[in-house]
């Protein structure tokens, strides 16, 4: 993959799917600050035995995946209102957290999320915004459950 190289989050991309899982329509969510897939953890089952002095682990389930980012107030009204409405209505929606622009030669995590937290900071001396927290959601599409997956976009031929 051509874009697989060291880079800062400033050069990475978050997308929100306003279409369906089968036929996505990705809109860029770019009026945000730092982003982190803060909880992406494999559960562990500890194995402790009399016959061995070391505690070891067996792989268990992936824990609840969470995505956190700072959404600035007053920019990109379409995206802002979309995320706000998803929060107010409890609407699950797919997001794609990509290394490069989603149109060409990119790879990333695709996952359905619910808006869990949408606090509104109105500090006297800071730009107002929301520390948004998304949590992995149960979502179906056409009767099939939507699980997280890797999304791979090959170099487009044009």
């Amino acid at each position, binding site marked *: 993959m051509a874009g697989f190289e060291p880079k800062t989050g400033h050069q990475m991309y978050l*997308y929100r799917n*306003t*279409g*369906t*899982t*089968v*036929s*996505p*329509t*990705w*809109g*860029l969510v770019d009026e945000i600050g730092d982003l982190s897939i803060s909880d992406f953890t*494999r559960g562990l089952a500890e194995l402790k035995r009399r016959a061995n002095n070391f505690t070891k682990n067996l792989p268990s389930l*992936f824990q609840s995946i969470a995505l956190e980012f700072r959404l600035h107030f007053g920019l990109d009204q*379409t995206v802002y209102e979309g995320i706000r409405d998803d929060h107010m209505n409890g609407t699950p929606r797919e997001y794609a957290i990509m290394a490069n622009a*989603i*149109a*060409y030669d990119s790879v990333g995590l*695709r996952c359905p999320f619910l808006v869990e937290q949408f606090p509104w900071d109105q500090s006297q001396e800071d730009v107002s915004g929301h520390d948004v927290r998304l949590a992995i959601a149960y979502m179906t*599409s*056409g*009767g*099939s*459950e*939507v*699980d*997280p*997956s*890797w*999304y*791979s*976009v*090959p170099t*487009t*031929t044009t």
Partner: protein
Amino acid sequence: MPDSLDNALNELSDLPSGATESTLMVKEAENFPITAGKLRALCAKNPDHPLAKLKVKSVEGFPDNTNVVVERPDLLAIVDNKDINFVTKVETRKIAGGEKKVTVVRKQLVERGKATNPEPPSGNFSGMDIVPSSGPVEE
């Protein structure tokens, strides 16, 4: 009993590639950047196509100059009046310096009403650890 062992091994070799190991689900798609206005105009050329209706709904309320990205086969399906069929294939990819089998899901265009897999398979994260396991590799 060598004969029965041979038979058992032969049966194993007939399993589909990748069936005996965990795989990583990868959805692969060629994408296409377009504005909401152009997407609406394109869908208006075949308004009765189910995908055209979905696409128009997906940009409802978006200003015409809003940039979105859609999957190229979806646009072709609307323009050429085709349906989308999902094809799943196990492939070997180089990931993190090692080779790993991944399950790749792609879209193909088929005649209307001929799609045998109109929905992608559910994700399978059993092979999510894309870096080859740190434990001993089972041969």
